[in-house]
């Protein structure tokens, strides 16, 4: 359980925005969206690591960098001893077989003109996982695994409901026998009753196939339900990383605390009239100096505006937090 399979160190990614003529003439530098800034974390074999945060916090960018859909600007990703960011050609293809991604919207990630059977067959044959004569059997096996009817093989993606399409997406990812699944907002587009079906499927598959799962989502209840550990992201940085129950019962970072307070509880008897946190997310085009949360943080002090807090271990329970409040008191510089 404790063996680290994926190690991310100082991963950064920026996206250039269009360079306007006015900016050029005025000699301003080209502006960039700071999507990921020095993200470090570790994923253990067989665990589910939840990655949670609001829109624009960089969680999807992180997922895409890990499967090399985006090329990171700086940093290191190590998967089972492999230097992921340096992989090319056959090496990269082999890595992509071991680490698969499932997307939020299966309708835009599945080829609308290929039947489910064709989609699965292609994935299996590209990676040479089965002899051609064994492929039909494997397809039936996969459909059964994700709970789709047998006749699904000859149907097109548009003939399925949202929940079923998500099952096709999962079957496609599993067709290449991966060790790790990266699920980006897997159930966000689904209705609650269907959401539960897909969540249950994911839990069951992880148990049966011993998968490592990175579960990227904005829904705190879902992340709590599925994850062993959770990383909370804010404006491109990981601000807290700890075991799920510890995160939810005793959040350490002020942003985590605000996020938990803001999530509407299912108990009408527990209402609060006070807002969990004031202000809005700063623009990732121009992130604030120092701690990214300091403009909204009720406990911010002078140092927070100047110095970026590092993500460091706190306490004996394996909790990582990036907050100046929790640091041992230092001598103020004279």
């Amino acid at each position, binding site marked *: 359980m404790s063996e680290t399979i994926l190690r991310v160190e100082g991963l950064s990614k920026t996206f250039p925005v269009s360079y306007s003529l006015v900016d050029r003439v005025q000699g301003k530098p080209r502006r960039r969206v700071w999507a990921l800034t020095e993200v470090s974390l570790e994923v253990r074999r067989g665990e*589910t690591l939840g990655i949670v945060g*609001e*829109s624009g916090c960089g969680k999807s960018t992180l997922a895409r960098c890990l499967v090399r859909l985006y090329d990171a600007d700086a940093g290191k990703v190590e998967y089972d001893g492999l230097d992921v960011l340096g992989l090319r050609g056959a090496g990269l293809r082999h890595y992509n077989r071991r680490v698969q991604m499932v997307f939020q919207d299966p309708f835009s990630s599945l080829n609308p003109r290929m039947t489910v059977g064709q989609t699965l067959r292609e994935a299996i044959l590209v990676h040479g996982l089965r002899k051609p004569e064994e492929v039909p059997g494997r397809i039936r096996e996969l459909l059964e695994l994700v709970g789709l009817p047998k006749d699904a093989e000859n149907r097109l993606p548009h003939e399925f*409901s949202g*929940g*079923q399409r998500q099952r096709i997406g999962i079957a496609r990812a599993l067709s290449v026998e991966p060790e790790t699944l990266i699920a980006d907002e897997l159930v966000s587009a689904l*209705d*609650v*009753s*269907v*959401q*539960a*079906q897909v*969540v*249950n499927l994911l*839990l*069951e598959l992880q148990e049966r196939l011993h998968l490592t799962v990175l579960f990227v989502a*904005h829904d*705190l*209840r*879902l992340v*709590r*339900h*599925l994850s*062993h550990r959770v990383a909370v992201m804010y404006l491109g940085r990981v601000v807290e990383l700890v075991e*799920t*129950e510890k995160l*939810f019962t005793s959040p350490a970072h002020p942003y985590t605390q*605000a*996020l938990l*307070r*803001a*999530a*509407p*509880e*299912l*108990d*009408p*008897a527990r*209402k609060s*009239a*006070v*807002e*969990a*946190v*004031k202000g*809005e*997310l700063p623009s990732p085009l121009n992130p604030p100096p120092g701690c990214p949360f300091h403009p909204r943080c009720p406990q911010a002090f002078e140092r927070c505006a100047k110095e970026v807090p590092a993500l460091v271990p706190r306490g004996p329970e394996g909790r990582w937090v990036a907050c100046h409040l929790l640091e041992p008191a230092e001598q103020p510089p004279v």
Partner: protein
Amino acid sequence: MSEPILVLKDLRTVFHTARGSFTAVDGVNLELFPGEVLGLVGESGSGKSVTLRSILRLVRPPGTVSGEVRWQGRNLLTLSEPQMRKVRGREISMIFQEPMTALNPVLPIGEQIAETLREHTDLSGKSIQARAVELLELVGIPSPRERLRDYPHQFSGGMRQRAMIAIALASNPKLLLADEPTTALDVTIQDQILKLLLRLKDTLGMSVILVTHDLGVVAQTCERVAVMYAGRIVEVAPAIELFAQPRHAYTLGLLNSVPGAGSTRRPLLQIPGAPPDLAALPPGCPFAPRCAFTTAECVATRPSLTAISNTRLTACIHQDKLTKTGEVAW
């Protein structure tokens, strides 16, 4: 309890298309009381948004609305269009899920508020400007005087929703219809907008109908809840009672589907199957094919919404056999 300010009687909205007739709202009966926040919950396609639009006659052809919408002694469905324009946006306002599509992208925010004020109040000239600033301030937009000249794209998602609320409140409406107002927003911003709505409701003495699919939002904001499934209301109850003990199998299923604290990494109690096709509804209870409590009676006849106490209504014949609160996991 006082007299209801809005009564829906057998409201029915049908869309006639080439592929057949779809009954999106199927005989809805509902009462709304003064100063109340009523939650209308359901999954996509359950008819909650269409119900809201039918109240204000915003349903376009091929959709037709029948039944009765009784508002202040009048049936809104029989008013002439000029009469209806005096109700819409003045007595009853509506806010939408996606403010970017509801706001005019080429008109400054201030002008859009002024437009509503000119149309629906007696204000003119300078007082319109002053009132617009006052409204933006009311909804918590910082430096409102400067932001009047801004266009919608210069506002963030949360700010746009605030601006839309300001426009909706410009005419001091007595009823606010909110269609998934926070679904497109992040959770910290959602929290701010919901608290703002509740505060404004109290200070302005409005009633609110809040359409949402999020049970957490319902629990935190609504006093009373109506649950919709396949175009019908299947249960009505005070929020506290509904969450403590649902009296319709579908409500129970919905509550069980949501992961709660303490149920970590255990399978959720799921509802099998998918919502029914509105063009081919079963003759009996529409939830029967997915329900664990189904009997022959459920399949044969359509259960009607009946009172089971002073405050609760349900359309489930097995309402007394549903599992206890302890089995609703959160």
